[in-house]
């Protein structure tokens, strides 16, 4: 196995580039706005969520600058409340939840299946416009009275005590919810019905397993968010008295409703990230993924278990002792599949051929940050320690480690990984790596101190704090600025590649999944003939070719049976 590998001149090289690809195959605004092509819809999503991320990032920067010192720096408390709310709402609803499935998934999922499109292309476009309308409602919120309820819209504050634009914002989230449902529905049917010949469930790439689990959660959980927000709107406008205690309702009931969606939503955010990381780690180790079945099954079990643990958000919301006991116990069961995934990735590195390219740096960053995020989650699942840590910066740090360190890093890794496929351009590896390392350092500096101040008692959602937490806040703000520099460099790297980047080969990384078999960028119809699927992690199937500067199918390779 460790013999010197001399590239053999392969007799027939697959086509690397096409003159007509999905990007230039038709022109004009309407050819994009009314497109049914999953790749174009994916790119439009990518543009939209990137802008949302930028907006959410500005809010984050404002929060951290304000908290640099005790006392109010450049906003008053009411403005701060709006800024932290909008940061959370924009990041969660507009960026993280649609991030990987809608943007990357839309481009990659049908390609990975060797399909011409998703099962319902019109529904796909419809979900994009629902996303856009949801975003428009957020912009409306921003320019009417803003929003200061926190992204959770807890009653009765949201129904009776705020004069901000709760109705616009919840209507926006309602639409975003249905956008998410339709994307999930589409992916579920696509994975079921559009698989190419030879792709049995156990030859499904792990990215698709992750998307499948995500789709299940989107279908089952998101409708409950819809009805919750609808009831919230009814409560605010008519006062039907289900959630507002002044009118005889129960605010804890609202929290049950909300978290029945929003806990699965946490896994809607992280499962796709795990799915991306599984692909990247296998590709850049040039090695078969370790424990394929365990990773696949853990995705589905996470998806199902995620519905039974929502009560751990309410341990101190005066949930009954019986319910806390049940929810705490089930919460621990979901820790096991997550741990299994991390161990499997680690074992994939073992005796691999590890290349520290930019996507891999993000994937390794993900592994570390997700490990910290997951381990610190234990404190929050244990009833006794959760009581003191709940609603403090410890929780803030924990979920940022999982959502930003986890989902954002995986998203960025996936973005770099599939960038050559999406755009047909290679970015500068050097500046990509520098950006990845900078972001990693900045992130840790920004959020690790928050664990310490949180466990010492600093509550979250505070516009102001006392001097005893100043040091941690200062470190955190400094880290945020470094993270910001890393992300700015990343944006520069990717945008520059669009104009000056080298042409990308069909398979620059040596991955064995089907999407790398079509030219970069793919043509409008993806594949002329449905490709024959084999083991998606049989890395020896492809080998390096000096002439095309990428990987081509290996000559005379016999798939190994595992």
């Amino acid at each position: 196995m460790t013999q010197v590998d001399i590239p053999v001149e392969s007799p027939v090289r697959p086509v690397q580039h096409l003159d007509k690809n999905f990007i230039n195959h038709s022109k004009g605004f309407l050819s994009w706005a009314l497109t049914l092509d999953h790749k174009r819809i994916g790119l439009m999503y990518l543009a939209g969520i990137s802008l949302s991320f930028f907006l959410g990032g500005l809010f984050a920067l404002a929060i951290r600058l304000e908290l640099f010192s005790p006392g109010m720096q450049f906003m008053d408390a009411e403005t701060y409340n709006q800024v932290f709310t909008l940061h959370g709402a924009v990041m969660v609803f507009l960026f993280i939840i649609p991030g990987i499935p809608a943007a990357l998934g839309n481009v990659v999922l049908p390609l990975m299946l060797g399909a011409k499109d998703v099962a319902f292309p019109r529904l796909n476009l419809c979900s994009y416009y629902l996303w856009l309308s949801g975003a428009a409602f957020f912009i409306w919120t921003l320019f009417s009275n803003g929003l200061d309820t926190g992204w959770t819209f807890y009653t009765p504050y949201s129904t009776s005590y705020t004069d901000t634009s709760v109705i616009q914002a919840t209507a926006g989230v309602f639409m975003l919810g249905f956008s998410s449902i339709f994307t999930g529905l589409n992916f579920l049917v696509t994975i079921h019905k559009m698989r190419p010949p030879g792709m049995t469930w156990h030859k499904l790439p792990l990215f698709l397993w992750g998307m499948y689990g995500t789709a299940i959660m989107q279908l089952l959980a998101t409708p409950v968010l819809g009805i919750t927000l609808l009831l919230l709107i009814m409560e605010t406008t008519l006062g039907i008295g289900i959630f507002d205690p002044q009118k005889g309702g129960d605010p804890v009931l609202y929290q049950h409703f909300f978290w029945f969606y929003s806990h699965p939503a946490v896994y809607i955010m992280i499962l796709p990230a795990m799915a991306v990381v599984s692909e990247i780690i296998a590709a850049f180790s040039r090695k078969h993924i370790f424990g394929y079945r365990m990773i696949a099954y853990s995705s589905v079990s996470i998806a199902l278990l995620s519905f039974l643990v929502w009560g751990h958000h309410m341990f101190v919301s005066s949930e009954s002792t019986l319910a806390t006991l049940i929810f705490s116990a089930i919460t621990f069961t979901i820790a096991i599949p997550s741990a299994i995934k991390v161990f499997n990735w680690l074992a994939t590195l073992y005796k691999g051929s590890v290349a520290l390219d930019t996507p891999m740096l993000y994937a390794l960053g993900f592994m570390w940050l997700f490990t910290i995020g997951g381990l610190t989650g234990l404190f929050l699942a244990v009833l006794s320690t959760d009581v003191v840590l709940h609603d403090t910066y410890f929780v803030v740090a924990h979920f940022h480690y999982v959502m930003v360190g986890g989902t954002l890093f995986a998203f960025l890794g996936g973005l770099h990984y599939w960038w050559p496929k999406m755009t047909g351009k290679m970015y500068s590896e050097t500046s990509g790596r520098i950006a990845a390392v900078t972001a990693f350092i900045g992130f840790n500096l920004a959020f690790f101190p928050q664990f310490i101040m949180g466990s010492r008692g600093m509550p979250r959602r505070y516009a102001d704090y006392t001097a005893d937490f100043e040091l941690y806040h200062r470190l955190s703000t400094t880290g945020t600025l470094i993270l910001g520099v890393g992300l700015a460099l990343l944006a520069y790297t990717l945008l520059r590649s669009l104009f000056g980047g080298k042409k990308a080969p069909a398979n620059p990384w040596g991955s064995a999944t089907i999407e790398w078999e079509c030219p970069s960028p793919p043509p409008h119809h993806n594949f002329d003939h449905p490709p024959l699927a084999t083991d998606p992690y049989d890395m020896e199937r492809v080998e390096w070719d000096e002439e095309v500067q990428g990987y081509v199918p290996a000559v005379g390779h016999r798939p190994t049976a595992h």
Partner: protein
Amino acid sequence: MSDAHGHGDKPFLAHHFEDEDHQFDSGKLGIWAFLVTEILFFSGLFCAYVIYRAMHPEVFTFASNALDTQMGAINTGVLIFSSLTAAWAVRNAQLGQKTGLIVNLSITILCAFGFMGIKYLEYSHKFDKGLFPGDKYEAKEGAYGDESKGNANTVAFTSPDEEESAEEAEPGVAFSNGDSAEAALAEEDGEELAPWNDPNVPEATKRKLKIFFGIYFCMTGLHGIHVLIGILVLGWLLTRAIRGHFTPTYYGPIDFAALYWHLVDLIWIYLFPLLYLIN
């Protein structure tokens, strides 16, 4: 059908499907997945219903008197009949019976309109009696059925501990939150006060009556919106059926719309006993 190219002989087969069976299977899985989201969508309302009914059964029993069982039963019949015609329409489509398909779709749509008409009568009756959802709720005389029936239910309506505290109250004392006007009005008329606007009934109990109507209007209202959407979809399919789009190999849309329509019926099958038939 902009994406219909590639299958010249089959105008409704999208290019990314292999054949009509493939398209039908995908569509069918899609509509079932959609129905799953619909069930979960309604589950929130059912959950709110279960919680408030389990905690205040007496309020639900009492407030249910305001609903007209007869109208509800007729509506159930209408909806079940429309379900039959929808299922029949699928059979027509499968067998390529164009006329039967058109007739059955039309009957289904007419039933849907009938359902909404009866719903309109019910709602306007409620609004006349001041039974609005939420803050506008202000029950008038006879809102909960005839006077004798209302009085007969007084005992069931007040739970034992509240009864006790209500008895302690001095008569004629007004409450702080806007009920004073209402009580005063009733007193001026010199009529005997019914329990729903009796000032001696504490505000905390009264607002539970409002919650019943909040839930009632949300559940039936959301169901009504689904009926309206069904009317639009079925109407569109009717025009396609008249144009002869459906064949025994291409009848997916009829089947999917019928499935949706059955689900709307299914939800009503539960709403009817839960809201109208409480004793």
